[in-house]
């Protein structure tokens, strides 16, 4: 029997009970062969929240076997779309019921403000589950005319099978929902490895999966180090598909492991260095608002962060001044402080990483417009930092920083802007601001990114597909497209009348 720890909620007398075991077959259990634990931190205070069980390679085996059994007996083709819909809707209802508690836990572990976690992360996650619940009984195949006299050709969209899902720490609950919802709607079973940095809400959500009534093994949760659990899932011979969101470097390893093991299907949502272009016809104040959102939302820890900003030379100085003002208005502070619009970065590791980039930017000669100085108080805080007068070869311009650090450059012509924007191995998102409709169309056509925002940034919807071009990913999440990532099409050719002449 594994433990439950009580985690105190700041500014209140309450605490949140968090199970610390591995969630397999609808029970929290210890590791079968290991005593390893993972320390879970509060990035606002730098202190340990608790320790949880770390899954070993053997535990992954157990989890996969459990999900395989469920797929063969109580899930997969053994459950109707209507029933899957009902269960996913029930899960959504439970998450909505517990939104405040989940938001507090998310904030304690990840650092984001409680109100943002509750109203945005969790609100959108509930919507995501309900959206895919609606699809569960609407996944149709086709009947296709071939030879009308004697044959019928039909396609069955079948669930792929047992899916390993590996999610990151920047939106723990929301990334969980984006993965879980379409996979369950289609009828797949899941072995979920949350980030070892932010495993707590995934464990709490596992309680709700059981409460909603999902059969044991449909969703197993195995927090572990990427090098252990992530590797084990991607190499596993009995996992049919792996879905990963995280860094491009790790994405490569996952794909390599998939190829070397059993050629399991792979979908990847990786990094970005998304360009944000402001043309001279843009509404400057609005564009500055969106640009600030684009780099500061979630303290810049967003794969779609608009981290390279290119401003047309005719408005460059004016825009930069307005933007710097906007950046300073955001209060980055403790997640339980009502005034906070953003929190600390998630961990010591990330904190060091981001500061290394800031130092590199200074060394390379970029001009610091605002920020760039460490705080002296506890917590992994990084304040909004804007670099101007950048050149394409700078590290801060080429590499994904994953913090509230913006690089601002200048362009003269539209073609130059497009060339600068596309000059990256990434292709996740891009934004542009212009009141010239033809320009908006031309530029959005030319930009090499999976999501283009025109006169806005960052806003996603559960029913619109999302994913990367180039090295930002393979496959799409959200929208109807996400279902295809979990479907394997079987074509059935039914001969009901043709007789074959032999020999040919």
């Amino acid at each position, binding site marked *: 029997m594994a433990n439950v720890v009580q985690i105190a909620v700041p500014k209140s007398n309450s605490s949140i009970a968090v199970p610390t075991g591995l969630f397999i077959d609808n029970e929290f259990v210890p590791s079968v062969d290991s005593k390893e634990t993972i320390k879970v931190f509060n990035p606002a205070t730098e202190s340990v929240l608790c320790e949880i069980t770390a899954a070993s390679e053997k535990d992954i085996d157990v989890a996969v076997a459990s999900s395989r059994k469920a797929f063969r007996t109580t899930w997969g083709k053994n459950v109707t779309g209507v029933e899957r819909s009902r269960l996913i809707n029930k899960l959504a209802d439970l998450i909505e019921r517990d939104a405040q508690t989940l938001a507090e836990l998310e904030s304690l572990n990840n650092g984001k403000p409680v109100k943002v976690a509750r109203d945005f992360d969790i609100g959108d996650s509930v919507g995501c589950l309900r959206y895919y619940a609606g699809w569960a009984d609407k996944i149709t195949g086709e009947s296709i005319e071939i030879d009308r006299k004697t044959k019928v050709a039909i396609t069955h969209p079948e669930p792929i099978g047992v899916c390993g899902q590996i999610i990151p720490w920047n939106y723990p609950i929301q990334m969980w929902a984006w993965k879980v919802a379409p996979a369950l709607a289609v009828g797949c079973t899941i072995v979920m490895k949350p980030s070892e940095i932010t495993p707590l809400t995934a464990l709490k959500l596992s309680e709700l999966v059981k409460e909603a009534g999902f059969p044991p093994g449909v969703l197993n949760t195995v927090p572990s180090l990427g090098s252990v659990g992530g590797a084990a899932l991607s190499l596993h011979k009995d996992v049919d598909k792996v879905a990963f969101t995280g860094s491009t470097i790790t994405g490569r390893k996952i794909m390599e492991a998939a190829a070397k093991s059993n050629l399991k299907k792979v979908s990847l949502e990786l990094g970005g260095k998304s360009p944000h272009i402001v043309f001279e016809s843009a509404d400057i104040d609005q564009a500055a608002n969106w640009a600030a959102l684009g780099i500061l939302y979630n303290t810049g820890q967003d794969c779609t962060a608009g981290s390279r900003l290119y401003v047309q030379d005719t408005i460059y100085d004016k825009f930069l001044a307005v933007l710097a003002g906007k950046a300073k208005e955001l209060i980055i502070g403790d997640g339980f402080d009502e005034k906070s619009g953003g929190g600390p970065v998630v961990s010591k590791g990330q904190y060091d990483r981001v500061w290394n980039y800031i130092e590199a930017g200074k060394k390379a000669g970029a001009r610091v417009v605002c920020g760039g100085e460490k705080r002296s108080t506890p917590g992994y805080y990084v304040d909004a930092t804007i670099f101007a007068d950048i050149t394409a070869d700078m590290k801060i311009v080429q590499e994904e920083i994953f913090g509230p650090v913006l690089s601002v450059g200048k362009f003269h012509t539209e073609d130059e802007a497009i060339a600068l924007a596309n000059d990256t191995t990434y292709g996740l998102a891009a934004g542009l601001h212009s009141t010239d409709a033809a320009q908006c169309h031309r530029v959005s056509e030319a930009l090499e990114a999976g999501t283009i925002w025109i006169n806005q940034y960052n806003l996603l919807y559960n*029913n619109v597909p999302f994913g990367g071009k180039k090295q930002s990913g393979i496959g799409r999440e959200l929208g109807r497209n996400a279902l295809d990532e979990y479907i394997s099409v079987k074509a059935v050719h039914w001969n009901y*009348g043709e007789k074959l002449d032999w020999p040919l």
Partner: protein
Amino acid sequence: MSTTTFYHEFNTPGYKGKVSFPTGVFINGKFSAGGDRTTIDVINPTNGKVITKVAEGTPADVDRAVKAAKRAFHESWGLSVPGAERGKLLARLADLMDEHFNELAALEALDNGKTYSWARAADLPLSVGTIRYYAGWADKIHGQVIETSEDKLAYTRHEPFGVVGQIIPWNFPLTMMSMKLGPALATGNAIVLKPSEFTPLTALRMCSLINEAGFPPGTVNVVVGYGHTVGVAISEHMLIDKVSFTGSTLVGRKIMEAAAKSNLKNVTLELGGKSPNIIFNDAELESAVKWASHGIFYNHGQACSAGSRIFVQSGIYDSFLKAFTEKALSLKLGDPFDTDSYQGPQVSQAQYDRIMDYIDSGKKQGAKVHVGGERHGNEGYWIQPTIFTETKPEMRIVQEEIFGPVGVVIKFEDEADVLRQANDTLYGLAAAVFTNDITRGIQFAHKLEAGTVWVNCVNHMHPNVPFGGYKQSGVGRELGEYALNNYTNVKAVHVNLGHTI
């Protein structure tokens, strides 16, 4: 303007409970008296007595309803409400229907005469399931983006029509309402709905649930009235952009004519049928008998898709007829609220008279009453399950839709001949084939001129599988994704981004 209200206490073996709800004309979220302040008697088909009086809607009420619907469509509904929110309201309505499951089933049984058991086993699950199914579609109404040239953006939108008129029958009142409301609301339309004047109670109960679910006032308006007044007003209305009707082929023609003469409103029709049920020698006999019985006696034969012409191949004819007769005789006719009743009364005096008239014509034209053919009991509208044999194709009971528990059993030998006979009808709603030879089953399914073909089953429907008629059985499809097309108008948007002339 105060409203009529229905108070009733159920004290039956099947259901006990009190109901109380307004039964006025429901416009803009409020109940009121009808325009002429007249009422319609709702009759209990078990004894011909008045259950209650409901407000009678008039053409003036239809006008008011259309105005309310138009305003709701422009101000508080339509595409200004995101699909996810429309879906949420529909899901809430389904939840409320679930909460009042037994009450709705009891009202349906009381008003229509079907048994409380069947209402719970079939009508309610299909009704709730249909609303829940369309709740899931609401935020998934996609248009297309179409490649044309570099300097143009071309895309389509699937926009709601606006105000749609819906006219539903009395055989499955709540299910028919759900089949109409679901896709229309999911796609963003506002509705003026006329329930059958014979069976308005569940529709009126739904109005209160629609308010409770949170639909903006005017989104759904319900006007109980007569076909020749309210029905005509809807089909002729110049501000209603689309009418959807389920009922007889005769009335369906009138609706289409009125639509053509008024404003060419879009029309979908679900009409009658004389559906063939073909049973081959190699059919699994016991199963075929059960399904054949379900095909014609389910809902007292008051189903548009009833398998009313039963073709039986000569090799099993005698054994089939024997077993089918036993089955028919085993069906228990009784009070709708007795837990062991299979069949209640027909819905009304008029229907009773119609069916008995057909039975008479069968007898007069020389067909043999193999079983049944008489009234059951001496009050209310019960008719015995009836089987005719030794019929000729030109007989009225073979050609015309009876809409009662009256089946004709016809012997056949040759495949080509039975296919010809099965298709030899103006109707084309459904058909069924019973055979162990799946090759033959599929071949027949493909050759039968019907919108639904059942192989080794009959009258078995699902919210996500489309349903509708070939030939004079209808225009358009309900249920499934296909129904969404009935309620959306395609707009193609061409944005010129550089093409000069």
